[in-house]
């Protein structure tokens, strides 16, 4: 079974919430990414979302944009990311790994995704396609890779159903109108929208965008199947990009984990 499906099923069975952590591959370099992934898992992360850098990441706020730029300065390609991930799988063959990025990078590297050598990747999340569609609609298909679709506060009710049904990994509920790392969470709205999604989805619904504190994470995990933390981690990676002392990221993640447990 696909690692993502298996992990999320287990969590659900044990009545636990999923913790998904995001980083950008190659920020500040690929060795650090590998180290950070180990730190994530040790601190309690259930799923790792690996950002694939793109020159024009229109859904990202300034923090993650800068991370994309740092990675691109290192000439990070999807090919190199795959090599790093294969390496990571020597240490950890259980944690689900999700690639998150922009359509152009994936259609340009169609063969990499279709081959998905040794099945190292479990899911692909494409930020800039309508929720009803997935990579298969753009000619990129691998039956072992499942789809994560986004639903946002502005998604109309009639589309929620078809998007929820299109998701085979989990439904990613975008908790705010805005880019990653913004800060205008409306918990009541989030609650009622996730309730609506859950009526249709056959897979778990996770909440992301704008979660900063352990308290945010706790509030949102109450109404969802788990939370996704991105910008606040990437910000710490940025601050430590020269020192490469990432220990406090581990502590931060542990704190979030505790808050949602």
């Amino acid at each position, binding site marked *: 079974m696909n690692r993502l499906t298996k992990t999320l099923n287990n969590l659900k069975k044990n009545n636990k919430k999923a913790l998904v952590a995001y980083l950008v591959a190659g920020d500040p370099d690929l060795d650090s990414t590998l180290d950070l992934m180990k730190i994530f898992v040790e601190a309690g992360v259930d799923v790792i979302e690996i950002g694939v850098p793109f020159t024009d990441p229109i*859904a990202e706020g300034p923090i993650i944009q800068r991370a994309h730029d740092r990675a691109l300065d290192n000439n990070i390609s999807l090919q190199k990311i795959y090599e790093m991930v294969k390496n990571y799988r020597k240490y950890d063959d259980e944690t689900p790994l999700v690639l998150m990025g922009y359509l*152009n990078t994936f259609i340009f590297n169609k063969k990499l995704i279709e081959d998905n050598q040794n099945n190292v990747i479990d899911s692909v999340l494409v930020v800039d396609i309508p929720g009803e569609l997935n990579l298969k609609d753009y000619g990129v298909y691998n039956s072992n890779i499942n789809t994560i*679709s986004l639903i946002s506060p502005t998604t109309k009710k009639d589309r929620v159903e078809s998007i929820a049904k299109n998701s085979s990994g989990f439904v990613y509920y975008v908790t705010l*109108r805005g880019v990653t790392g913004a800060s205008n969470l409306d918990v009541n709205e989030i609650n009622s929208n996730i309730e609506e999604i859950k009526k249709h989805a056959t897979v778990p619904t996770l909440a992301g965008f704008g979660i900063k504190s352990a308290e945010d994470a706790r509030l949102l995990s109450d109404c969802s199947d788990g939370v996704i933390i991105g910008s606040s981690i990437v910000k710490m990676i940025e601050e430590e990009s020269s020192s490469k002392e990432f220990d406090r990221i581990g502590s931060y993640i542990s704190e979030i984990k505790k808050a949602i447990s």
Partner: protein
Amino acid sequence: MKANNNNLPDKNGFFGEYGGKFVPETLMYALEELETTYEKLKDDAEFKNQFYKDLSEFVGRPSPLYFAERLTNLYGTGSIWLKREDLNHTGAHKINNTIGQILLAKYMGKKRIIAETGAGQHGVATATVAARLGLECHIYMGSEDVQRQSLNVYRIKLLGAQVHAVDSGSATLKDALNEALRDWVTNVDDTYYIIGSVTGPHPYPMIVRDFNSVVGEELITQSKEMFQSMPDAIVACVGGGSNAMGAFYPFIKFNETRLIGVEAGGEGVETGEHAAPLNDGTPGVLHGALSYLMQDEGGQVKGTKSVSAGLDYPGVGPEHSWLKDSGRAEYVAVSDEAALKAFHEVSELEGIIPALETAHAFAYLDTLMKEFDEDANIIVNVSGRGDKDINTVAEIDGIKI
């Protein structure tokens, strides 16, 4: 030819394989809302009356079709005619589209207007129509363009809009578009995004084309009046491609008229240092649409180079990609050097200082006019005037103003 049917885009926003809606989910609703509004209004008599009234009384349309006698004599082959979009209020064709889109914004009850701009002409045109309706207006502009188009930056500010300099990426038009999209994602409920070219997700390429098609529609009438036939060719510069699309679109069905788009060749197409995706790009997705794009082998968008801020863009409107593949339009490129030469030449021969963007279209006459005889009628779309470029050209010529 399929492109002759003029029924594109299809209901999903595709021109053949190009176009579409590739945006974050948060914007899907806004695009649907815009599409519904536009479909409802585009044939509405009252809406059309208001649009044409504004174009006539506020913009000063129709813009003349002018016989360029000395330029014609210079080449000695066909007659060269100039479509004077430079005479429009605010100095370029960009106002045609903003007049139309601000009416949509007003109808939709949006309180806040945003736009991206490269050369600043679309920023000025947007700030102008926003001022007229008293709407809050924010213009995103690459910080490099803020420098080289300082005159337009000040004009935008005078019109009461805020200019946001964008430092990310290459700090040019592409990055201004990224930032405008991010603003829109954040403020989608009360904000209308006036995209300035035939680019972006559906329905924008269609809407911008339709509003700017007033240029081509006038040309049909004016050609009959001035030389009693359809033109043999229409030449227009192509960055995102709105001035070209507006001039070309009504002519797609007239196969006797060659449609020629001129891209920014920068240092020369062969050097890779240019902004000519239709000449030297491959299909890819940027800013919500699939179209020809300058990108590397990993699918990353490449930096561009052009003396003209308005053409300095790695993508192009999807309908141009379709017109290229179908063979209905031809796309060429001229270098910065050739464009600068044409800039001076047209200024001195015709008493018209063209925008640097427009100078690219003029520069191609050097090649094109050899293909015609004396009976031919060639139209150059003078997309804008060159006042905004005086500082850039003076600096290149080593003159301090």
